């Protein structure tokens, strides 16, 4: 079983569209994250949820809206997509006292 799974793996869409990326973890972790990896491989945190509560919200355009229906799921909805949103988005989870993050395999978003 995949510990942290993201769907879709690839997403190609036109500017102005709205899209969602889903993430699920079966590790029983309390905290989930969204990271963005740009074309230069730089990883930057976007959001963090702990038990469905938003605890980290970095400087991210409000076109990005995370939603956590339960602690095993953290979805990312993006409105009015722009070319600059093209990146790989990684979901991750962690548990206090655990061994750091467990990452999903990423969603490569391409906006054309």
């Amino acid at each position, binding site marked *: 079983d995949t510990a942290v799974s993201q769907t879709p793996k690839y997403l190609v869409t036109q500017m102005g569209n709205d899209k969602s990326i889903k993430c699920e973890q079966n590790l029983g972790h309390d905290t989930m994250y969204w990271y963005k990896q740009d074309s230069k491989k730089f*990883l930057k945190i976007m959001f963090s949820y702990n038990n469905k509560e938003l605890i980290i919200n970095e400087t991210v355009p409000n076109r990005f809206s995370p939603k956590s229906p339960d602690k095993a799921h953290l979805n990312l909805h993006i409105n009015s997509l722009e070319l600059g949103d093209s990146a790989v988005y990684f979901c991750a989870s*962690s548990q206090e*006292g655990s061994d750091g993050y467990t990452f999903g395999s990423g969603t490569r978003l391409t906006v054309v």
Partner: protein
Amino acid sequence: AQSVTQPDIHITVSEGASLELRCNYSYGATPYLFWYVQSPGQGLQLLLKYFSGDTLVQGIKGFEAEFKRSQSSFNLRKPSVHWSDAAEYFCAVGLDISNFGNEKLTFGTGTRLTIIP
């Protein structure tokens, strides 16, 4: 704010040779330190971590890293690389012992490792 520097953007090593990837951090206290590896098209996999205690930590795949407080460094080493080690390597710092596991990680910009036969 904390920061992480990986001075080497790209390193090329012959198969069987030794490897050292550099990582320096900037923070007033001792942070948690991590090394992750990312193979092409894959997510990040944890290689090893340092919290406290022995400054030489062993990880998976034959990697080790040494924490040097005086140099604010946490360099990754492997005595003999294999072709399968070709990947992107990220150093990261996490903060606040009381929140460990629920704290954001700050990543370095990564070092791409190429292995030549």
